[in-house]
């Protein structure tokens, strides 16, 4: 028994216990049950625990200095033994306590009788504990054996070379090559993309138009924040404030209550954008003298101030207070009422295209370069003749304007707006999707929004775990892929320049086209 493998077992055992206490096992169980239409959640829960220990086995194998077959067996066995004993004791204990009707839930809310029944498979605690012990032993050995096999048969490198050669052959296929060489290849791709986008709302249906519409609004928010954080390097944690300002402007100007202005949507939209941009400048003038962490904290405060103000009793007559504003107006065009998810999807797609195009052009312009220079070194940027305050304000105003645009559409589409739509979580969400998608990358923001806003929407059961998943995802991303899911080519080069082999294939492929 090596100490390292016992430690791996302990780690896995603790992690599994943690999962059980948090209710992750029950959740996995019910998800698997839903997806595969099973009769009980037992399989999913046990599968998670099995996979954990299996993973522990592979981990321990990687750590063990000897890679012989007998050593592998011993490594897997010790991982399984430690994890097995821990889990068996837990199941036995929980099962017994549950049988004696001890109210475990009072201390550990996730350990409901149903969750415990899932762990004990509805059998006597001792039987379930023994069964768990055996399963964990098998899992540990299985994991180690798997790692042993992977090492000795070199699956990974074989698969990798296959993948590379397959890619090469696809690229070399005359049709693909012809397409790439075709002078209009880009335009054709854009055309197909536009066609898909234009027809998508037609066959998506109500639910998907609504869900993807929300994702789209977050894409606009993300693209706006990308200007502020990604390009100009100003960490704004109160971004939701400008979303709220756009949203409330639309609501107060078009709703019959509390002001009875009932302005046209088409007039309220630009006013919302403008007001949000002005708020950005007004906040920016005092705040942008601060840098880095200080700026983040002040903007964080500003975001909360706006939300609390909108909620406060003092402003109830003005902004509807905690109840929010109802019956927000929607767009009319030539006497046609466009106020439903379906038409809004088109507005949102159009909005994304406009914002994406504008930010893309700005990125490569004199303005974009000034922003980048400020991000890199503010003092030097100033010494090179850039009026830094002016450009920082410009970035703030643009980002805020886009947020206001998104907010105005949001309020009008939902026909409602209220303080609870503008929590700190929105700012964090948007920042996370920019980071996870890839800072400074426009496709990255779109993918980030789909992952962070679309997935939770589809996996409603996971709602309680959203923050946990966010945190985990961010940590994993920062370690494995700090440049984001779809990095801008620039960021990729910045972060992985020394890993030249990662760049070589692309260069070769490009060379091959010529």
């Amino acid at each position, binding site marked *: 028994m090596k100490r390292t493998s016992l430690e791996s077992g302990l780690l896995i055992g603790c992690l599994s216990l943690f999962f059980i206490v948090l209710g992750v096992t029950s959740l996995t169980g019910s998800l698997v049950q839903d997806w595969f239409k099973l009769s009980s959640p037992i399989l999913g829960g046990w599968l998670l625990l099995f996979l954990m220990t299996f993973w522990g086995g592979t981990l321990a194998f990687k750590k063990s200095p000897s890679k012989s077959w007998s050593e592998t067996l011993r490594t897997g066995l010790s991982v399984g033994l430690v994890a097995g004993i821990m889990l068996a004791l837990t199941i036995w204990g929980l099962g017994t306590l549950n049988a004696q009707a001890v109210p475990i839930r009072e201390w550990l809310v996730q350990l409901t009788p149903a969750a415990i029944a899932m762990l004990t498979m509805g059998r006597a605690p001792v039987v379930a504990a023994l069964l768990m012990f055996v399963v964990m032993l098998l899992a540990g050995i299985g994991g180690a054996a798997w790692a042993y096999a992977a090492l000795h048969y070199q699956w990974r490198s074989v698969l990798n070379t296959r993948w590379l050669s397959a890619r090469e052959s696809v690229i070399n296929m005359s049709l693909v090559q012809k397409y790439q060489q075709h002078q209009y290849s880009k335009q054709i791709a854009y055309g197909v993309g536009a066609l898909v986008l234009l027809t998508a709302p037609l066959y998506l249906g109500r639910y998907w138009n609504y869900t993807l519409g929300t994702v789209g609004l977050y894409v606009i928010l993300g693209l706006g924040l990308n200007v502020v954080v990604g390009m100009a390097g100003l960490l704004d944690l109160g971004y939701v404030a400008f979303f709220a300002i756009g949203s409330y402007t639309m609501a107060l100007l078009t709703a019959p209550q509390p002001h009875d202005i009932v302005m046209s949507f088409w007039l309220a939209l630009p006013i919302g954008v403008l007001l949000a941009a002005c708020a950005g400048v007004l906040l920016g003038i005092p705040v942008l003298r601060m840098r880095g962490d200080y700026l983040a904290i002040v903007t964080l405060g500003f975001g909360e101030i706006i939300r609390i103000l909108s909620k406060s009793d003092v402003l109830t007559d003005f902004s509807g207070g905690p109840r929010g504003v109802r019956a927000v107006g929607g767009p009319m065009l030539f006497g046609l009422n466009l106020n439903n998810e379906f038409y809004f999807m088109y507005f949102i797609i159009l909005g994304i295209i406009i914002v994406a195009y504008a930010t893309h052009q700005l990125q490569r312009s*004199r*303005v974009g*370069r000034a922003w980048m220079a400020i991000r*890199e070194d503010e003092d030097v940027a100033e*010494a*090179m003749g*850039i009026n830094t305050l002016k450009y920082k304000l410009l970035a703030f105003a643009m980002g805020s304007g886009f947020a206001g645009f998104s907010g105005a559409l949001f309020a009008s589409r939902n026909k409602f707006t209220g303080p609870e739509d503008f929590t700190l979580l929105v700012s964090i969400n948007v920042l996370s999707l920019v980071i996870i998608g890839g800072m400074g990358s426009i496709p990255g923001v779109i993918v980030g929004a789909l992952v962070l806003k679309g997935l939770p929407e589809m996996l409603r059961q996971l709602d309680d775990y959203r923050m946990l998943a966010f945190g985990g995802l961010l940590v994993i991303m920062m370690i494995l892929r700090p440049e984001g899911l779809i990095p801008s080519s620039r960021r990729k080069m910045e972060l992985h320049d020394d890993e030249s082999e990662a760049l070589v294939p692309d260069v070769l492929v490009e060379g091959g086209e010529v």
Partner: protein
Amino acid sequence: MNLLESHKVTKQFGGLLAVNTVSLNVPENSIFSVIGPNGAGKTTFFNCITGFYKPEEGDLIFNGHSLVGRRPDQITAMGIARTYQNIRLFDDMTAIENILVGQHHRLHSGIFGAVFQLVGTRQEEKKALEEAQELLDFVGLQGKGDIFAKNLPYGDQRRLEIARALATKPKLLLLDEPTAGMNPVETVEMMAFIHHLRDELGITILLIEHDMKLVMGVSEWIVVLDYGMNIAEGTPTEIRSNQRVIEAYLGRGSDFALVQGD
């Protein structure tokens, strides 16, 4: 005619007089050096000229206009550019982008031009790019335009920093220890390059330097600072034999050997 005049400039940090009533006149088209031991206030004086510090007393006149109270970007637009002792490039931008940033105040396109790709903007960008390319060639970095600044070798980074400063079309170029960290061969090249800058482009050069060899070889006029004060002034030969300068350097130790060794 004097391009830059400093009249009794004083800069204080708390009780410390970093720059104490420094007066000097930099004639147009000259190579002018400010030397002094560590902590003599040379870089602080530079920061006063470029607008990062506001001197408590005294005045700085550039080309007939006072610099005091102006923002750094305004001063750059008036025709003063600088490099830094510890190179400060925009690391995560390419060499050519670094130079384009230097051109910033001479270009005009704004948001609308960029978003709608107006004809004027496109022409301006094209011209700016050509000019940046020329500058890159001028400092000897041909073909390295698309490399990230941080990935360039040390000597190239120094040159790029000068190219970026030149992109602002300065009348006066402030070089803060341009040969710091260079080997003797690179130092000699840099000396030739500084001469070249003045002769070719007609730029007045104000140099801060520790390397005595460089200062003596290249400067036409030298000012020596110690404890923030102007202690001596003259041609290289005069400075070499000045008793106060020798004392200032001897007091701190080893640099004197360099003066003598020349």
